[in-house]
């Protein structure tokens, strides 16, 4: 059974004679967490990349199999901790569909969910862009992105009570309604943030140094992306209009208007690092558009009323029928899926599997990082935008 391990040890030992084996991480400022990359290099050229993951394996699936559905929601927040709302939204949606109550959720609840998810998506993309700037050597975008992200954190804290890990979306509803005045403050934020995006574009997107570092680097062809199960901005950066918000039309998304930005190869080849970066920038703009529409609905047709109870549809006991169900939705990093197996008798599922987008997006790294320079490897790793909490679960 251990032949694979022996083969691997043999391979590293023989590579160390001819070439150099270089360890990057787990403590490395550019690996975005505790990823360890083992590089077999010939001088500055990377011949092979062997990713080692699991340094943040926090046993999500074990927790989900030991706790009830409602108790698992805080643990879903900690998967992709940059976009917690999206994670709990996916999980909750799956449980609601299995319970058969997904059609009874009030419209206002759905719109609030989409609103906070899109806010969180912006926060996640801001971190992706800011830290990508640092990887490439630009420090200012990081400070600017974090400055704007703090506004989102403040607003979501106001709604849920926590800055990062919210536990706000519950099965059958929400923790609380939005606080009074949230919509107005959110409008102010959107007005404040739109010109900041223009500034950010001037600073980074059109920066010649940035373009030189990222264009034509780490090209990911579309068929490779699909075969490796890449999703989200990775897949869209390679030029495919594939967004589960449109394909599956869940929650309030069918009523919202937005476009799906894809990589066009403006600065180089379709599917290079710059394209992936640009898709994220464009997605922020689309998210702002969606937030505008949500706020518009929430302030007019779906106004808060004194008798509105966001927990009204919450089931007393969350016991779905005996069945298997795989739910997928568009998280900030790509297709986020949860697979449930329930026995129909208890509130605890027998098996839960989290299909994390970063896990699959990262698995393509050895393929696209073959034969690049070490400096370009950093650019590729940054453009994948993975979160180790989600890779390792």
């Amino acid at each position, binding site marked *: 059974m251990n032949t694979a391990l022996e083969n691997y040890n043999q391979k590293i030992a023989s590579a160390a004679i001819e070439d150099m084996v270089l360890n990057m991480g*787990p*403590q*490395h*400022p550019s690996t975005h*967490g*505790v990823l360890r990359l083992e590089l077999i290099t010939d001088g500055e050229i990377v011949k092979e990349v062997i990713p080692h993951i*699991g*340094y*943040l*394996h*926090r*046993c999500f699936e*074990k*927790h989900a199999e*030991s*706790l009830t559905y409602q108790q698992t929601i*805080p*643990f879903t927040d*900690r998967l992709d*901790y*940059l976009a917690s709302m999206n994670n709990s939204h996916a999980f909750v949606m799956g449980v609601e569909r299995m319970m058969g109550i997904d059609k009874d959720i009030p419209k206002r609840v759905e719109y609030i969910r989409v609103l906070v998810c899109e806010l969180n998506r912006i926060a996640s993309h801001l*971190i992706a862009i800011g*830290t990508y700037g640092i990887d490439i050597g630009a420090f200012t975008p*990081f*400070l*600017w992105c*974090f*400055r704007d*992200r*703090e506004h989102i*954190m403040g607003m979501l804290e106001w709604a849920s009570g926590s*800055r*990062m*890990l919210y536990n706000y979306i519950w099965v059958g509803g929400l923790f609380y309604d939005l606080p009074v005045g949230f919509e107005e403050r959110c409008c102010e934020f959107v007005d404040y943030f739109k010109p900041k995006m223009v500034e950010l574009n001037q600073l980074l997107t059109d920066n010649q140094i940035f373009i030189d570092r990222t264009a034509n680097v780490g090209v990911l062809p579309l068929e490779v992306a699909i075969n490796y199960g890449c999703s989200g901005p990775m897949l869209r950066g390679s030029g495919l209009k594939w967004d589960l918000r449109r394909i599956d039309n869940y929650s309030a998304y069918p009523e919202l208007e937005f476009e799906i930005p894809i990589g066009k190869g403006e600065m180089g080849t379709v599917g290079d690092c710059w394209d992936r970066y640009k898709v994220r920038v464009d997605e922020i703009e689309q998210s702002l558009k969606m937030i505008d529409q949500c706020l518009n609905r929430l302030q007019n047709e779906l106004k808060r009323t004194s008798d509105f109870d966001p927990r009204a549809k919450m089931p007393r006991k969350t016991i779905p029928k005996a069945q298997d169900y795989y739910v997928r939705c568009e998280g900030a990093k790509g297709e986020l899926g949860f697979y449930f197996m329930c026995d129909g008798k208890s509130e605890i599922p027998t098996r839960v599997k989290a299909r994390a987008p970063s896990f699959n997006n990262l698995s393509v790294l050895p393929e696209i990082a073959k034969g690049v320079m070490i400096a370009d490897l950093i650019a590729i790793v940054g453009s994948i935008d993975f979160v*180790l*909490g989600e890779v390792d679960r």
Partner: protein
Amino acid sequence: MSSEMNDSGGVVITKMNDLLNWARLSSLWPLSFGIACCAIEFMGAFASTYDLDRYGVFPRPSARQADVLIIAGTVTFKMAERIKRLYEQMPEPKYVISMGSCSNCGGPYWQHGYHVVKGVDRVIPVDVYVQGCPPRPESLIGAILELQKKIEGERLVG
């Protein structure tokens, strides 16, 4: 002291210990090492809004240059050896801040987390614990101030 003897400035008299301690506590350099969710708040504390640089705290990428190891996130068994090695690579005097519930005691993973070390103090000694999941950047700043108080009371010479 007459002004003719020293017209370019005054003289400060202090104890050697206080001078050393003052210098050390005013330039605490943490290792830029984040593990999980807390690392984002750790980054946030260095960014524009909270700006830890004003306390002389500036992250260093190498363990050889760092004074403080901030354990920001869940410590797993696969990671524990690496953390221990990082700690051993740091030069003395060195301090450890355990940031967040996970590194304090395992946090939410204390019961079913078969792969989570239930507290980083099982691996390396800890000076200051910060509570929260994740702690706010203000809490981290508070921990740095606590650590400065601790350093103030130490005696390096004499």
